[in-house]
C-alpha cells in the first residue's frame, strides 16, 4: 500500500497534467462536434432527403476502428499530436449528437408546434423558442454519450503523441507495468463518470425550476451546476496551456523546414522499453552537456510514426535501427553486412530525408526467433533450420509489424521454407510471458530483450543469415545538427557504449523489475561517469539502487 502511495505521489504532477490534456482533447472535440452536429441535426430535420445519407455517412465513420482512424488521419494530415486526435474524437462524437438532435427535435409534440405557429412564430422562432428547448434533454443526452465515448477513445490518442491519460497506458504496456496501466485506466474511467455527471448537471440546471422545487436546498445549486462542464474544460485548457506543449499542436514552423530558434530539442521514441531507455539516455546527455531544452515525446506508436515525425520536423531525433531504416523505411533488401547497411542508410537518409545517422550505440537488436529452452532441448533445436520441419505444429506470437513487414515473417517463410501452424498478433509487451506460459510456442523477440534470460528462453540462431543487422543509432535532423553542433558532441560518448548483454540487462531492469526508464538510464550513465563531473557520479555499476531513484 505504501509502495502504491509513493508510486502515485511521485507521478501526481504528471497525472495532473495528463488529466488536463485528456480533458482538453475530449472537451475540445466534443465542443466542436456540438457546434457542427447541432446544425447538421437541425438541417436533417428540415430537409428530409438529407437524413439517410448524412446519418449513414456519420454512422460509417463510427464503425472505423479508432486506431485505424488515427492512422488514416495521421497519413492524411501528415502530422502527429493533438490535431489528428481531436479530429478523430470529433468525428466519433458526431453520430450521437446529430442523431439525438434529430430525435429530440422530431419528438416535440405536434400540438405544441401548432400552438407555436398559431401564435405567429416564424420558423426560426419555432426552432429557437420551442423545438430546441424542448429537445434539449435528448440533445444533451447525446452530448453526454459523445463525451463519455470521447474520454474512452482519447486514451488511444497517446499512440500518436497527443498526450492524455493514454500515455500512462501506453507506457504501462511498453514497460509491462500494471501500475502504470491502472494509473491511466482508473482516472480515465473516473473522468468519464465525472464528465457525464458534469454535463448532466448543466442540463439539470437549465431545466425549468418547478414551484414544488423552489426554496429547496437543491435550487441553490442550479446556477453553479450550469458551469460544471465549463469548469472541467477550463481545467483541461489551463493545465494543458500551463504545461505548454506547443509542439503537440503540430510544430508547424519546424515542419516547413525552419529550425526552431527556441533552443529546444525534441526527442522521440517508439513505445517499448529499449527505445524509452535510449531516448532517456540521449535526453540526459543533452541536458547535462548542452544548454538546450529537451522535450521528451516518447512512446510514439511505431517506426513510421517516428520517421514521419522526424521528417516533418515534429521531433528532432530518435534512436532507429539500421535494418529498420534499410528495409521498412527505404524499402530496400539484399544487403546484409552491418557496415554496408549502415553506409546505405546514412547516405540515403542524408539525401532523401535531411537526417543524419550518428555513430551506433554498439548493440545489434536484430530479430531473434525465440522458443522455450525446455522445448529446444527436447527437440534439439539450435537454429532456425532445425525448427523448420516441425513449424506447422507450432503456434507463433508475432507483433503485427513483424507479421506484415517484408523483412519479418513473410521473408522468413521464404528464407527457411517454414510456415507456422498459426501466427497470432501480439503486443510485444505480452509475448515473452505468453511464450513462457505456453500460450504460444514461438515468438519474434529482439536480441536485447531482457526477458530472454529471465523467462528461460532461447533465441535460435539465424543460420542462413536472414535477418539484417539492427544496429541502433541516433538519427538526427541535419538542420538541427547544423544549428546546434553541440548535439553531435553531446551524444558522441554513447557510441559503442552498449553491448547486447548490457542492453538486455538494462531492458530487464525496466521490464522485469518495473523500474522507470529514466531512473535506469540515469543510473547507467552515472555509473559510466557520463553525468556531470566525476565527483558527483552515482553508485558504481552493479550496486543495488533504489527503484524510482534518479
Amino acid at each position, binding site marked *: 500500500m505504501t509502495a502504491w502511495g509513493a508510486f502515485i505521489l511521485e507521478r501526481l504532477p504528471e497525472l495532473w497534467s495528463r488529466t488536463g490534456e485528456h480533458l482538453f482533447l475530449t472537451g475540445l472535440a466534443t465542443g466542436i462536434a456540438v457546434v457542427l452536429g447541432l446544425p447538421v441535426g437541425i438541417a436533417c430535420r428540415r430537409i428530409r432527403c438529407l437524413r439517410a445519407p448524412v446519418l449513414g455517412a456519420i454512422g460509417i465513420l463510427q464503425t472505423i476502428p479508432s486506431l485505424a482512424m488515427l492512422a488514416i488521419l495521421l497519413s492524411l494530415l501528415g502530422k502527429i499530436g493533438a490535431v489528428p486526435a481531436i479530429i478523430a474524437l470529433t468525428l466519433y462524437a458526431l453520430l450521437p449528437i446529430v442523431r439525438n438532435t434529430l430525435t429530440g427535435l422530431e419528438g416535440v409534440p405536434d400540438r405544441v408546434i*401548432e400552438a407555436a405557429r398559431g401564435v405567429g412564430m416564424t420558423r426560426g422562432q419555432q426552432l429557437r423558442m420551442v423545438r430546441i428547448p424542448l429537445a434539449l434533454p435528448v440533445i444533451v443526452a447525446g452530448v453526454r454519450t459523445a463525451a463519455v465515448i470521447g474520454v474512452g477513445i482519447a486514451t488511444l490518442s497517446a499512440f500518436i503523441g497527443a498526450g492524455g491519460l493514454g500515455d500512462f497506458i501506453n507506457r504501462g504496456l511498453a514497460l509491462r507495468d500494471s501500475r502504470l496501466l491502472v494509473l491511466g485506466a482508473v482516472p480515465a474511467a473516473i473522468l468519464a463518470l465525472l464528465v457525464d455527471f458534469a454535463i448532466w448537471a448543466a442540463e439539470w440546471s437549465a431545466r425549468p425550476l418547478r414551484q414544488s422545487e423552489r426554496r429547496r436546498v437543491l435550487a441553490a445549486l442550479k446556477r453553479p451546476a450550469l458551469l460544471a462542464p465549463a469548469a472541467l474544460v477550463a481545467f483541461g485548457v489551463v493545465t494543458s496551456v500551463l504545461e505548454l506543449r506547443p509542439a503537440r499542436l503540430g510544430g508547424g514552423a519546424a515542419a516547413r523546414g525552419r529550425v526552431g530558434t527556441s533552443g529546444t530539442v525534441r526527442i522521440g521514441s517508439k513505445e517499448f522499453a529499449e527505445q524509452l531507455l535510449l531516448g532517456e539516455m540521449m535526453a540526459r546527455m543533452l541536458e547535462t552537456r548542452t544548454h538546450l531544452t529537451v522535450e521528451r515525446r516518447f512512446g510514439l506508436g511505431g517506426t513510421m510514426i517516428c520517421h514521419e515525425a522526424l521528417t516533418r520536423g515534429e521531433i528532432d531525433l530518435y534512436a532507429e535501427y539500421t535494418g529498420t531504416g534499410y528495409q521498412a523505411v527505404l524499402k530496400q533488401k539484399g544487403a546484409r553486412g552491418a557496415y554496408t547497411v549502415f553506409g546505405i542508410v546514412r547516405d540515403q537518409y542524408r539525401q532523401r530525408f535531411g537526417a543524419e545517422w550518428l555513430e551506433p550505440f554498439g548493440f545489434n537488436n536484430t530479430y531473434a526467433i525465440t522458443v522455450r529452452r525446455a522445448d529446444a532441448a527436447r527437440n534439439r533445436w539450435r537454429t532456425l533450420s532445425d525448427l523448420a520441419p516441425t513449424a506447422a505444429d507450432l503456434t507463433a506470437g508475432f507483433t503485427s509489424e513483424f507479421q506484415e513487414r517484408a523483412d519479418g515473417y513473410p521473408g522468413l517463410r521464404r528464407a527457411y521454407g517454414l510456415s507456422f501452424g498459426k501466427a497470432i498478433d501480439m503486443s510485444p509487451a505480452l509475448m515473452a510471458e505468453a511464450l513462457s506460459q505456453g500460450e504460444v510456442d514461438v515468438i519474434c523477440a529482439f536480441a536485447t530483450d531482457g526477458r530472454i534470460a529471465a523467462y528461460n528462453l532461447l533465441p535460435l540462431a539465424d543460420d542462413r543469415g536472414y535477418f539484417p543487422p539492427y544496429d541502433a543509432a541516433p538519427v538526427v535532423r541535419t538542420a538541427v545538427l547544423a544549428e546546434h553542433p553541440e548535439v553531435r558532441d553531446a551524444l558522441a560518448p554513447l557510441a559503442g557504449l552498449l553491448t547486447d548483454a548490457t542492453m538486455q540487462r538494462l531492458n530487464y531492469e525496466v521490464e522485469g523489475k518495473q523500474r522507470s526508464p529514466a531512473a535506469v538510464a540515469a543510473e547507467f550513465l552515472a555509473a559510466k561517469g557520463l553525468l556531470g563531473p566525476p565527483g558527483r557520479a552515482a553508485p558504481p555499476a552493479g550496486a543495488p539502487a533504489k527503484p524510482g531513484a534518479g
Partner: protein
Amino acid sequence: MITLERVSKSYDGGRTYAVRDLSLHVAEGETLVLLGSSGCGKTTTLKMINRLIEPTAGRIEIDGTDVLDQDPIALRRSVGYVFQGIGLFPHMTIRRNVEIVPLLLGWALAERRRRADELLKLVGLNTATYAERYPDELSGGQQQRVGVARALAADPAYLLMDEPFGALDAVTRDTLQQELLALRRRLGKTIVFVTHDVFEALTLADRIAVLHDGRLLQLGSKKDVMHEPADAFVRDLFAKPGRQLAAYQDLAP
C-alpha cells in the same frame, strides 16, 4: 368582419373535400359557433382564417383584406387563437406563455409584464401564485384560462377558439363558458368558436353555423336552427339534446 366566400379545402388534390364551397360572414362583435361532429370541417375552417391552413379555392377576408395577401406571421399575431387541448408551451412559465405574442411583437419588458399580470387577473388566476409556475403545475381548467389569456394578450379584435373546453370536466366547462360570456360582454371581441357540443353552442352563440361533411347546412340564430331547421340532419341534431333533457327532467325530483 370576417368573410368566407365559396371556400373549399381538399387535402388530397380534389378527390375529397374537408370543406366544400363554404360561404359565411362573422359580424363585428358577434360570437359565431361552428357546430358539427368531428370531421365536419369546422377546425379546418377555423385554421384557414389565420392561415394555419390555406384554402384550395375561395376567398377569406378579414376587415376587407384577403388573408392570402397578408403576411401569415403578422396575421397570426393579430388574431387570438385558443387551441384544442390547450397547447401551452410546457417549458415556459405561465407568465411567459401569456406574454408570448407581445414578446414576438417586440413589446418592452415592463409593458409585457403589466399586460400578462392584467390578463391573468382577468381570467381569474392570482398572479403571485401562478405566474411563475409551469403549465403542468396547473389543473386543466386553469391551463385553459391561461390559453384564453394568451390569446387575448395583444388585444386582438378577433378570437378563434377551437373546442377550447372539450377536454374539461362538465363543471369546469360550465364555469369557463360563463366566464367567457362575461369576458365577451366586457371586451366586445368578435369570436369564432368551434364545438361539437350542442349545449355549448346554444350557451355561447349569437349565431350558429351547422357543418356536416364539409358543407354548411344552416347558418342562423339559435332560434332559427332550433325552430326552422334547414333539413333533417339539423332537426335531429337539436332534437336529440331536447330528448335527453326531457328524459332528465322526468327523473328530476
